[in-house]
């Protein structure tokens, strides 16, 4: 393989993984925009999405039904978590951050009890050999992943710009007090944001399960990387998070291919530290989690 072919391959696999980070990062952005909470448990929405797909698939449910069920259940988990955090929403950010850390540990532990420590494999949504696209090989599930991610982004865009409820949520993100004065129930927007981020996380989990394995502890690392993607995009910008996700995926893939695969997982955190430092130096025009 020439270097150019290799680069094309790294780019393709990076984009596939990046789609996952984008989905997870978007969950962070939606919750943070509306509630100013960094939901540390975001990754723990991904894990049950993947594991539920495996379990429901074992029950011989058709893939689309299993997918919708998994996403629906985890959206419910997101809503429940919002209700749990609701009573202390005025607490200092540090306390809330710790609260969501607690929630993430509890969810992971719950999954450990339900599913055990074994990794589960899931068949791809459609069988067949990898396809060639512009000189790079992509597994079929990778196409499913990118397609479903694109569909999710499109649905969210329609929801946030073309529906009354979505516009109301955006109003709450921009100015909660103003939104309340306009008769919008800020509480409900917060509930909706958490539900959506649960659904987004589960979507990510469901589509990635056939590529990696599904385990009870997969959520932590995926969640952290989704977080880096969101921070990369400025933490309040949905488009930024999507771009950040793909950028992070490609960076990781390039680092793994060109430098060393041993440090692949460290890339995201180097990016995170660099972002923190760069922001300190005031080099980037957008603010990274200034209000966090």
């Amino acid at each position: 393989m020439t270097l150019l072919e290799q680069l094309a391959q790294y780019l393709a696999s990076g984009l596939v993984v990046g789609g996952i980070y984008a989905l997870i990062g978007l969950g962070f952005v939606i919750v943070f925009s509306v509630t100013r909470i960094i939901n540390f448990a975001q990754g723990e929405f991904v894990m049950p999405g993947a594991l539920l797909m495996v379990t429901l698939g074992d029950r011989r449910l058709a893939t689309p039904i299993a997918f919708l069920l998994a996403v629906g259940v985890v959206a419910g988990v997101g809503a429940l978590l919002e209700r749990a955090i609701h009573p202390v929403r005025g607490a200092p950010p540090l306390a809330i951050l710790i609260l969501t850390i607690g929630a993430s540990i509890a969810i992971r532990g719950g999954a450990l009890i339900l599913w055990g420590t074994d990794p589960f494999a899931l068949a791809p949504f459609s069988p067949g050999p990898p396809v060639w696209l512009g000189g790079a090989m992509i597994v079929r599930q990778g196409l499913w992943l990118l397609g479903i991610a694109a569909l999710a982004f499109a649905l969210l865009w329609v929801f946030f710009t073309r529906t009354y409820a979505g516009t109301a949520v955006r109003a709450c993100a921009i100015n909660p007090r103003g939104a309340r004065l306009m008769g919008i129930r800020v509480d409900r927007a917060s509930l909706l944001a958490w539900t959506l981020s649960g659904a987004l996380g589960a979507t990510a989990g469901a589509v990635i399960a056939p590529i990696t394995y599904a385990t009870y502890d997969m959520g932590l690392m995926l969640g952290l990387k989704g977080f880096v993607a969101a921070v990369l995009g400025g933490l309040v910008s949905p488009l930024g998070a999507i771009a950040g996700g793909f950028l992070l995926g490609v960076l990781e893939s390039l680092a793994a291919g060109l430098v060393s695969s041993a440090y692949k997982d460290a890339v995201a955190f180097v990016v995170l530290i660099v972002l923190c430092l760069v922001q300190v130096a005031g080099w980037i025009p957008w603010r990274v989690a200034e209000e966090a």
Partner: protein
Amino acid sequence: MSVSARRRFRMLVAVAIAMAALSSAVTSRYVLSTLIFIALNAMAALGLSLVMGFAGQVSLGQAAFYAVGAYVSGVLTASFGWNGWAALVLAVGAGALLALAIGLPIFRLSGLLLAMATLGFGIIVYYVLVNWSGITGGPSGLTGIPPLALGRFRFDTDQRMLWLAWSLLLLLLGLAGNLVDSRVGRALRAVHGSEVAAEAAGIDTLRLKLGVFTAAGATTALAGSLYAHYLTFINPSPFGFAYSVELVVMVVLGGVASIWGTVLGAAAVVLFVEALRTGLPLLTASHGAPEYEIVAFGLILMGFVVFLPGGLASLRKTP
């Protein structure tokens, strides 16, 4: 001596006497090692407690400082034959220096930026420990770390280690108590109350917060160094993100910014993990995953933030 200093001194003496009595009366290795681990964890969490309580920031990578302490000591003594105390001093210095290097740029900004940066730092350190196998021994770790020794007297039994760990812990608790009572402590409380007001009163808040974070790096590294010399064997797995979270749990349980609370929190976590490890298999009659503790951990953490934000230490606080 002020009233609070006298009270603290009495408390320290009481704990010292209790530990001395325990160390000679108890022969069970299990009990002794549990007590040692309580001391090591309390030492590691002490600085974090001050960072969270006074600087209003959280370090989500405190395990990295523990790891730096343990590995600097371990590598220097086991691979390069250094004297244990010299290695310990260098380990503590490395912890402090790293904390300073992270804190110096980060503390200029408000918000939870430190949480993010330390989170990244902690995970990177973990990957370095796993992958830099030439020095750290990789996933299988380092063996043959000698116990600390004073001349011919080696801290190689549980009794002796108990003495060493608790003496150092009590010393640090005394120092931290004095610090909190001093002018610096008042300044820290002012920063905690309102940073703007503190600055208006002429307090260099940046320097203070940086100082607390640096001290936290040093004490956590000290605990790590003692850990390496006590077990004489280290590998990366106890230094992961999970341990960083565990330290935060200890601080929250004990009560943020409470000096004695750290010991309570560390004791609660260590005892709780032990109780679950021995008790759960009996209750559920399953020998499956021994990690059920993590569910309870999560729920307890959530419960404390919601119902008892002052932690265990606030239960006995006199009005």
